[in-house]
């Protein structure tokens, strides 16, 4: 019914659509798996269950809470309502200090203990991670 050329073209368009939808699927799937959510200590407290997905938490480093040892550093992140203990082994950004804002990436052990794998660098002393600003504003 249709000529060979037309059939070929249909096949070609079909192939492109197939590849395109496969790509979109791949990207969305990967996005879903690799997205990291941000939570404040208060939001962590209201979590229904704790899974082993990587998350970010943010707030202020509670004053007089930083404890340094050879292998790791421990501190408390607070949003002035709730607190989380953080244990971290790794490089600490220059501007990390008590009473300043911080964002930590890692895994929740339970609702009050967080194993951080990364503490995010900030760029100047006035800078407050937008998430923290938001979290602090909500009170």
């Amino acid at each position, binding site marked *: 019914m249709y000529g060979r050329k037309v059939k070929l073209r249909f096949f070609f368009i079909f192939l492109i659509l197939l590849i395109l939808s496969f790509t979109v699927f791949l990207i969305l799937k990967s996005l879903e798996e*690799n997205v990291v959510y941000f939570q404040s200590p208060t939001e962590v407290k209201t979590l229904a269950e704790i899974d082993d997905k990587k998350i970010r938490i943010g707030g202020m480093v509670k004053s007089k809470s930083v404890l*340094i040892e*050879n*292998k790791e550093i421990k501190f408390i992140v607070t949003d002035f309502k709730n607190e989380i203990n953080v244990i971290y082994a790794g490089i600490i950004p220059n501007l990390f200090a008590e009473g300043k804002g911080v964002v930590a990436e890692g895994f929740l052990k339970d609702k009050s203990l967080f194993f951080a794998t990364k503490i995010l660098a900030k760029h100047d002393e006035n800078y407050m991670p937008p998430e923290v600003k938001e979290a602090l504003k909500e009170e």
Partner: protein
Amino acid sequence: MASLIGFYSLIFGLFSSSVIIFLSILNFRNTNSFDKKILTFTSLQLFFVIVSFLGLIFSFINSDFSNETVYNHSHTTKPIFYKISGTWGNHEGSLLLWLLVLTLFIFVFLIKSKEQSKQYRILTLLFQQVIIIGFFIFLIKTSNPFNYIFPVPKEGLGLNPILQDPALAIHPPILYLGYVGSSIIFSSTLAATSLNYISKKWAAHIKIWVLISWIFLTLGILLGSIWAYYELGWGGFWFWDPVENVSLMPWLALTTLLHCILILEKKLLFTSWVIILSISTFTLSMCGTFLVRSGILNSVHTFANDPERGLYILIFLFCLIFLSLFIFFFLHKSQDNKDYNFFWLSKETSILINNWFMMYFLSVVLIGTMYPIFLEVITTEKISVGPPFYNKLIIPFLIPFLFAMAIGPKLKWIKSNLQDKMNLIILLIISFLLSLLIIKNTNLNFLLNTILVTSGFYLFFITLRDFFIKGFNKLSQNLAHFGFSLFILSILLNNIFSSEIITNLKIGEKFQKDNIEINFEGVKKKSINNYDTIIGKFKIIDFNGSEEVLEPELRIYNQPNIVTSEADIKTDLFTDKFMTMNLVQNEDYFNIRYQVKPFMIWIWLSVLLISLGGLLSLLNRRNEN
């Protein structure tokens, strides 16, 4: 005084724009030849912008704190070099630099395009003036670099110390030459589309601009990356940070365009594709400016969070996109060579396939960068997309991409049979065995990594061999592709063999892991111009025989009061030894990171090779003409 001159020059510059537009429209309609007055006014406009820029530089050098921009970003104790580079180390000044490059490029374009048709030149100028006016108004209205403060402050607030660095001082101008160079491509493509002017001759002429922007964009990204490596102290060169991504996106589009222009020049094919790519390159550049300037992305580039600025660029951007889409859909008549058929195994197909891969990489980066922004606007949920997302989606597709890149240039136009198949297969086997040898002793995903390294080596060997058989013929292309293979290989080997030790140590303590012992021998303190510094002394003993002393620094800047870590890096041909330290909470412990990173220098060198390939191609064209 300098500020005053600078400001009025800006007004005059904007005024020249309207004169240019008036003259151009007049000249476009009549049948006379190109009006010399247009060129005069274009050079006048360039002159005004240069004066304005020099005015700002003088204000910075003289530390004229009656100027708000200077007050916010400078300080009397700052070295003169950083006073000057501070000119574009802030929002207002960097936009003035944008404008400077915009006007400079259109001026050079007019001079260099004399053999093109009058209407095409004038229309390109008109489109460029639309962009220039947009930036003039943006600058004067929302981000005037010459705002006056009274009473005049005695001292400025200082430049962010991490910007006080040689690589970062020249990073913005170089990057801007690339970004803004794409504006000429954009204007000229729109002009050529509206006039039905797209031809092989046009392609040959615009290719020079594509090459120039591409070289500068590549170098600009390289500089930023080197800076991030040694200054931020994270021990990497690319973090898939949105700010980096917005510079990578125009680069991907521009690289694709560069390859398409080649086909257009030789075969008059893919005209629509070229138009779309030209438009996207400039749009992505503008988009990058919008994202980093609006405060949506938080980074060292975000100088001020002013929603008005973001909104202005966004509206301007939409107008430009709308204009270009209108021209593309309503005025574009395909010039493609209709009788032209090419066989599936040909150079055209291979370039097309690689273009598709590039577009795929581009969409991955685009989605990864934009999705979090949109999600936050729509649902207020805050997310971030990190390296795993990009690695997972990009790395597997590098394999066919690299193979196509290795085989593609071997093919002929239209239809081709692979010549010397035997050699190609032998090289493939060698690459495979070599990567097998490398991956065998690591505990990585065996299959994927072996194939990945194989494809890298394959491209490496094939391009290396081409240096000998082809000689000077197609040297530029071969050099760029060779550079790319070296780039990929260095990154892969760097990822596979990097190792690091992170620990907290007191002075006099030592730390041992595997074969390496770190001795913290002591610190000394020094006071320099605008900062105090603490220099640590670490002796690294490798039980395989070598010994190294590394001295990372901790700088405490006085204005603004910021602490930065300066990494100490010992570079040799095959490995970088990288060390940073940080003092936590003024206790006795120093937070120390020691990294061994193989082939770092080859990553930088290979990018230089890639841009050298571009430069060579540019010079080649000169000789031909």
